[in-house]
């Protein structure tokens, strides 16, 4: 626990010691606000559905940027060699790093509360979908982060980690999209639609938090974190 906390603290501070956190937060909020307000006054409805629907796609580009350096940079400059020879278990480092990226996401999401507050000021939105949307956002973002973290363990090049993270999340996102499901063989449709990253988000967006969706996201996170640990341990496989 102590070790996880040490790694978390170090990584979280490192986000804010470098421009990454500020750039991430600013751009993410700026771009999401732009997309939101572009249609908000046209539709003239006090709701955030369009905003949330956009999120799986914005995350696709933004989240791998948060995770890309977590392992790739350590490998590149060789600090991983000191880190992994300290008396710390591989999974502790993985969890510590994951939580740090998760905390950055949480901070960003908190900053984005300005949007629902604006909407609430201008109209009278239904709070259910908004609360649900935020819970879904955190869960889905958490899943993206775990995928991005895995991508970062696979290479020492941050750009490759970034692109790999996008590709892996993209695949997991589109398999649940209608256009893929229409064209897929019948027997895989239920599997794909269950595994799709976005489908569970849409169901949470309706304002109903189903335990299946919760379990889905937590399993995705657990699964990819486990793969990260395996990927790190692979250097010691005989």
């Amino acid at each position, binding site marked *: 626990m*102590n*070790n996880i906390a*040490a*790694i978390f*603290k*170090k990584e979280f*501070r*490192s986000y804010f*010691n*470098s421009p990454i956190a500020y750039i991430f937060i600013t751009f993410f909020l700026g771009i999401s606000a732009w997309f939101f307000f572009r249609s908000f006054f046209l539709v003239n409805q006090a709701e955030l559905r369009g905003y949330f629907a956009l999120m799986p796609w914005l995350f696709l580009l933004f989240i791998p940027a948060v995770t890309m350096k977590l392992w790739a940079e350590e490998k590149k*400059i*060789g*600090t*991983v*060699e*000191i880190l*992994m*020879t*300290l*008396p*710390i*278990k591989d999974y502790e480092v993985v969890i510590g790093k994951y939580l740090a990226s998760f905390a950055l996401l949480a901070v960003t999401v908190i900053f984005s509360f300005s949007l629902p507050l604006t909407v609430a000021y201008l109209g009278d939105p239904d709070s259910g979908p908004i609360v649900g949307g935020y819970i879904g956002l955190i869960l889905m973002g958490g899943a993206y982060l775990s995928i991005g973290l895995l991508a970062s363990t696979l290479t020492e090049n941050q750009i490759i980690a970034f692109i790999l993270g996008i590709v892996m999340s993209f695949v997991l996102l589109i398999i649940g999209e209608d256009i893929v499901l229409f064209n897929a063989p019948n027997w895989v449709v239920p599997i794909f639609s269950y595994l799709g990253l976005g489908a569970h988000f849409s169901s949470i967006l309706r304002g109903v938090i189903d335990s299946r969706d919760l379990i889905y996201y937590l399993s995705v996170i657990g699964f990819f974190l486990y793969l990260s640990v395996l990927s790190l341990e692979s*250097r*010691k*496989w*005989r």
Partner: protein
Amino acid sequence: MIQVKNLTKRYGATVAVNDVSFDAKAGEVLGFLGPNGAGKTTTMRILTCYLSADAGTAKVAGYDVFEESIEVRKQIGYLPESAPLYTDMGVLDYLNFIAQIRNIPKSQRKERIREVIDICGLEKVIQKDVGELSKGYRQRLGLSQALIHAPSILILDEATSGLDPSQIIEIRNLIKEIGKEKMIIFSSHILPEVSATCSRILIINEGRLVANGTPEELAGRAKGQEVVHISIRGHREEIEAKLNDLSFVSDYKCVKSDDAILGYRISSQQGNNAAEEIFQFVVDNHWSLSELRQETVSLEDVFLQLTGSEPADNLSNE
């Protein structure tokens, strides 16, 4: 303290470490010497539990590096080659971070950090970020990171490479100082580096351990051979034809040939009084001799014999 048995590590088709076995006791400063790519770093990475071996066993302070990795890591302080550090952290933050993971109780952390700062001479840079440090200070910070938990074993990979001569001497003295109390494994591809600091030398070449002994023992192994350098004025064909006829000469090599002066490095079996014999040989042939000098056998000859390559000798500050 360290027992290594038949350690083997392959990377695909190349064998990085090939059946290496050695023991090391407390209080020894062990030098790994070998050309670049000989397997020194890989051996160290296995000992520090960063990599695992394909075959063989290694025990550190009684713990198996594969089975009881965490215990082994607690015993060891490790500085990898070129001191990789987090450049975005402050010097104190970095030491604090390492101390935290090294599980040094909060109450003692400050004191320990102060101690390693003193030992490694980091006083001047504690306010700086790691990224601003010069190579020499990074190396010291790397060393202090390895010392912070007062480990019983210190493993340093090429700790002096890339430093300027005065920094090398500082780091070397530091290692000597620390080596009085701790066991140190120190790798280098530079011979004077190892012979200056280590009480025992392991020479590794192409993954194999080719020699293991004190610097004196190893130098002793090179004896049994005398090497004489001569410079003669004469014709190359004639000289070489006659050199071939000399029974005590086991080998010779033309090392210099400008104008009519020819330089030779002649080796012969010991006990032949090679220098005198060669002088007589030159006189008999009525050549003129401009240089005759006996080469002292050194560790370098052992290194050469065992590895078949020249040791790097880029230290002229001796």
